[in-house]
């Protein structure tokens, strides 16, 4: 490594990692002196020391190079034939030096007296991307200044920065092992930790949590959560029509409505119709679950998660097997052929149409490619004559490679003029080509599924010739692979490093309740650098986990464990108040603090109270309250709300009132040993001034704080004091007022059956305490 590189890396280290000695490095830069790295023929330049100072990384690279130029100027980009090629500094930290040289080189060249760097960026000279930087914009000013610094016209002022970042997670305090345990059991399997788990964590701390995770990920409840979470991403249960419409009339005409003729003679005739409806409901639910059962199967068996795009099988249950007409041949493979939700991996035969024509394959089998060929995926993202499978291509990129092609290059041009100027704009106009050359080949790979219902059915006239040929990112689909085109796509996807990254991002979304950060876009944002650092820290974690995921045979459980072990998941609070706005901006997204979804909230209520509230998630189709509480229907409402509106605030109040109402009197009505909420207290324990009663009441409060909020407080913690004051204050005031000695009718242990007496008003006071706790963020958020 030469001197220049060493110096550069010093600058770089300061920027990218821990920054503990930022001030020292700044000083170092001042004293290193001149390094002659500029060819003699070029105009006199400033010392290289100044050229590669952190200002380049923070301003030129971060705000212009990475955001603007690198969109096209990289080895696989639109401008890959240009000499101005840039590298991804996230994947290769040393790339910053090469990028610096590329910029410096462009800045030195002139075009009609204007530095080529500026001429290209502003479109004064022919530039494939047109004018990407407006005159007088921030980006323009940065580039101009860069040129001036190189030319020595602007003396670099090495000022001590106003904010010297420290280690990224400095002062961020992690969850205690016990609280982490509660977080993961609730999040992954919807229950509270068992006594054995708590004891294990008491002994071994975080290490025990890691071991417990292995067991949690074997529980059925984990797979329920996995199905629900992946539906938030893929939204497959939202496909249109009846669930059994997913099986085409053309290929499953005789079997797909099997429930209509299923023998129910053993059921009394008067009940038969109802039973048939129930049968249909179960069958439909089983069909909706199939794609997620594939995910569950892969994860449970610890098979490579790449199988979500490569599996040469799909999942079927006894009920769905009937829909495919395969029940008789499969029934011996099921443990319980009457269980609608027991799924096994199955290979379909090549599809045969009503006219007897069989799908051309070389194996006689349907060419399964994981989710890509499931009928549910294809129906959820159907095509039209003019869309030509582009929606599917877009979703493919988003779901499996983490790329939103709609944000790739939405360029502002006269789109109507383009359509006038070109015969085939999507293949000829650069503004269109930039996306279509990515999208259209993949759309072509889906060509055998050109049926507007989402079913199998190649286009009669053959695939479109006015589109880029079927393939993927420059590689054409080989002719002999056409019959198994999606398998070919799946195999290529599994090899793509972006697949692992996308899956790591999905798991992050599942655990954190939000998507990973996007890079900051506004170069004028005063906290741009801080936000970029936050983004880069997260990116590095994603990258590292993705590499480990790939190394460990794409076992998705590894990703869950890695995120849970990371400071991103464990961050809980701050050791001291942070006031510096830059530091606050750096930490802006840190911490889980995720509003529970309606489903999660119901599970948490069940874990704590032993029974779901049942109003948010009801059996049947009435999900109105869930939608009001920010839930999704996977069809029209597809994004969960993450911040509570006033309407949601009202539902929280309603929930707290009602859940407390349902459980407090009922709990006291049970023998102490069977109680969940009040095992150590009775309704006649009153704050009578005795130390013993106060201790018992406080102990009951500590217990409730732990049970409902997961808080670990001692008897005299300020929060316990506040709850105690609430309880005592209510009793004191009730004593002054005249009150009915009966608990409110709706909140009695068994409303309508027997009256719950509340002679001391303590049941109502405890109900108020539970209501109070249920309205807090430690309950409503994860």
């Amino acid at each position, binding site marked *: 490594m030469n001197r220049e590189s060493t110096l550069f890396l010093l600058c770089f280290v300061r920027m990218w990692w821990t920054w503990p000695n930022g001030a020292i490095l700044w000083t170092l830069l001042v004293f290193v002196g001149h390094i002659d790295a500029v060819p003699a023929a070029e105009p006199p330049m400033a010392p290289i020391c100044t050229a590669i100072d952190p200002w380049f990384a923070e301003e030129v690279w971060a705000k212009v190079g990475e955001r603007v130029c690198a969109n096209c100027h990289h080895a696989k980009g639109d401008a890959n034939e240009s000499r101005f090629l840039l590298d991804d500094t996230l994947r290769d930290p040393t790339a910053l030096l090469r990028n610096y040289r590329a910029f410096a080189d462009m800045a030195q060249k002139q075009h009609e007296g204007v530095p080529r760097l500026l001429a290209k960026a502003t479109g004064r000279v022919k530039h494939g991307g047109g004018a990407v930087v407006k005159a007088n914009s921030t980006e323009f000013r940065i580039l101009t200044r860069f040129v001036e610094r190189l030319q020595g016209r602007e003396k670099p002022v090495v000022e001590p920065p106003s904010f010297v970042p420290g280690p990224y997670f400095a002062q961020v305090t992690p969850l205690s092992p016990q609280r982490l345990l509660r977080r993961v059991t609730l999040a992954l399997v919807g229950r509270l930790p068992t006594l054995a788990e708590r004891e294990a964590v008491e002994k071994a701390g975080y290490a025990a949590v890691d071991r417990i995770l292995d067991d949690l990920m074997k529980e059925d409840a984990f797979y329920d959560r996995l199905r629900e979470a992946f539906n938030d991403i893929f939204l497959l249960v939202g496909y249109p029509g009846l669930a059994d419409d997913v099986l085409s009339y053309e290929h499953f005409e005789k079997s797909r409505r099997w429930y209509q003729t299923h023998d129910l003679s053993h059921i009394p005739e008067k009940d038969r119709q109802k039973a048939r409806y129930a049968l249909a409901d179960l069958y439909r639910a089983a069909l909706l679950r199939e794609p997620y059962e594939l995910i569950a199967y892969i994860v449970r068996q610890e098979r490579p998660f790449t199988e979500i795009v490569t599996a040469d099988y799909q999942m079927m249950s006894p009920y769905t097997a009937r829909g495919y007409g395969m029940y008789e041949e499969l029934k011996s493979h099921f443990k319980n052929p009457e269980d609608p939700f027991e799924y096994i991996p199955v290979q379909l035969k090549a599809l045969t149409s009503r006219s007897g024509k069989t799908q051309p394959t070389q194996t006689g089998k349907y060419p399964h490619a994981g989710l890509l060929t499931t009928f549910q995926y294809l129906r959820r993202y159907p095509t039209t004559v*003019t869309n030509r499978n582009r929606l599917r291509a877009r979703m493919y990129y988003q779901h499996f490679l983490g790329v939103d092609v*709609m944000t790739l290059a939405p360029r502002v041009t006269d*789109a109507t003029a383009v359509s006038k100027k070109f015969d085939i704009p999507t293949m000829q106009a650069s503004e269109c080509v930039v996306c279509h050359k990515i999208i259209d080949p993949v759309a072509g790979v889906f060509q055998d599924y050109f049926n507007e219902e989402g079913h199998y059915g190649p286009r009669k006239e053959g695939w479109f010739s006015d589109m880029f040929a079927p393939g993927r990112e420059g590689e054409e689909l080989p002719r002999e692979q056409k019959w198994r085109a999606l398998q070919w796509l799946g195999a290529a996807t599994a090899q793509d490093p972006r697949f692992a990254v996308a899956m790591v991002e999905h798991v992050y979304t599942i655990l954190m309740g939000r998507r990973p950060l996007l890079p900051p876009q506004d170069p004028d944002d005063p906290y741009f650098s801080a936000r970029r650092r936050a983004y880069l820290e997260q990116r590095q974690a994603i990258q590292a986990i993705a590499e480990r995921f790939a190394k460990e045979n794409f076992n998705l459980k590894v990703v869950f464990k890695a995120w849970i072990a990371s400071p991103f998941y464990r961050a809980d609070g701050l050791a001291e108040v942070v006031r510096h706005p830059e530091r606050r901006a750096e930490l802006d997204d*840190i911490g889980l603090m995720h509003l529970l979804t309606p489903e999660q909230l119901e599970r948490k209520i069940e874990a704590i109270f032993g029974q779901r509230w049942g109003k948010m998630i009801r059996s049947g189709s009435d999900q109105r309250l869930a939608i009001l509480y920010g839930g999704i229907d996977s069809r029209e409402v597809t994004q969960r709300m993450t911040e509570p509106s*006033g*309407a949601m605030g009202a539902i929280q109040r309603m929930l707290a009132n009602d859940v407390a109402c349902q459980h407090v009197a009922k709990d006291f009505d049970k023998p102490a040993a069977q109680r969940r909420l009040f095992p150590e207290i009775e309704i006649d324990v009153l704050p009578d001034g005795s130390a013993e009663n106060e201790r018992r009441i406080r102990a009951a409060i500590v217990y409730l704080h732990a049970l409902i909020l997961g808080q670990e407080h001692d008897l005299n913690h300020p929060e316990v004091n506040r709850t105690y004051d609430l309880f005592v204050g209510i009793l004191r005031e009730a004593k002054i007022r005249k009150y009915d000695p009966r608990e409110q009718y709706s909140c009695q242990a068994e409303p309508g059956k027997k009256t719950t007496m509340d002679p001391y008003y303590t049941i109502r006071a405890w109900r108020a305490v539970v209501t109070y706790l249920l309205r807090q*963020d430690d309950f409503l958020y994860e």
Partner: protein
Amino acid sequence: MNRREFVRWCQSAGLGVAFPLGWQGHTLARQREPAPYEGPFFVVVNAAGGWDTTYLMDPKGVGGINRLYREGDIQTQGAIRFAPTAKHAVGGMANETFFAKYARELLVLNGLDYSVNNHDPCSRYMATGKLDSLAYPTFAALVAACKGAEYPLAFLTFGNYSSTGNLVPMARIPYLNSLHLLANADGVQGSPRHPYHDAFVLERIEKALADKHQAIQSSPRLPRTERAQNMLYAAQENSKILKRVVPFIPKTIPRERLSVQAEVALAAFKGGVAVSANLTIGQFDSHANNDAEQMKLIPELLAGIDYLLRRAEELQIREKLVVIAQSEMGRTPHYNSGQGKDHWSVGSAMFLGPNLRGNRVIGATDQKQFLIPIDAKTLRLDAKNGMRIRPEHVHAALRRYAGIEHHPFAKQFPLDIPATEQLPTLWMG
């Protein structure tokens, strides 16, 4: 730290926040229950999927652009030309009726350049005025944040692109009946006559929550935690004024999808708990059978707008209502093989509201449905030296119209329109 300082401080850290009305303490909140928000009220009506403007306010009838009428059939009401649809409309309200009733108040903007023609970026662009950012709030969210983030339903949305820029929570209330339940959250099954807790108990619960919220303000917290705790407290605290909506919930629920949304929004406006609403009906994306589809949907859209305005009149808030009718794209000037029309990056929008001079058409497209530029100052067509009106121009003008262009939240999301491209006379002409 007072409320204003707190806002500034949050902004300095890039934090969006919605405040409880009594965030300094519960006592204060109880002493001063907030005055109802009095308007103006902003309604954005979205024709999601891309409407065919040539069957609405930008009629052509030439060059095979329309199959249901010819150029000579085009109707005029005041200054506004529109396509005749009375013979073909399926349900809803025909253009003839709509423009006869509202042309006097309507400002029509034709030749709007969406710049791209894909649904997602276009929806985002039309809703926010910013094409290349996922962070910008929609106009409806921004105006709600600037004028009344503390109201429980400040920004109501029924779909379409609804990003809030983290300035204000979005409220989704698709069911009219739910308003009753939400408005009486402390009553068993939404009944104010059967409260869960005795009044003094409830008051003590609220006081304890307020005390707790106050106590944690000075504790070291992660910014995200801080924001979530503030928002949670605000959501619960502010939700109590939802009771104001109850008198304005209609006894009969309309059947039409836009009318239901209108009723929710109007009840919330009239109750003084909302600032803006994002109404939407979809399925305009008529790649197949364009004419049949558009003849169902455009009349449905117009009937919905008419319903909104009529009911606003009945509720006596019509004069405070600003209506923006828009879509994320137009349809091509030709039919495809499925008798449909594909995406077209030029379209139109309509506006109606106080301090807005109606009976005007700004901008135009030519006979082939290509955009004709305009002079920014005079708003006259100027094919040679004029400018293309894009969503950011409209949004900058909307911010000015709403009086929020200098609000810190608006500045947090700048549109950077050069002075020469401002449209100073857009609203009053």
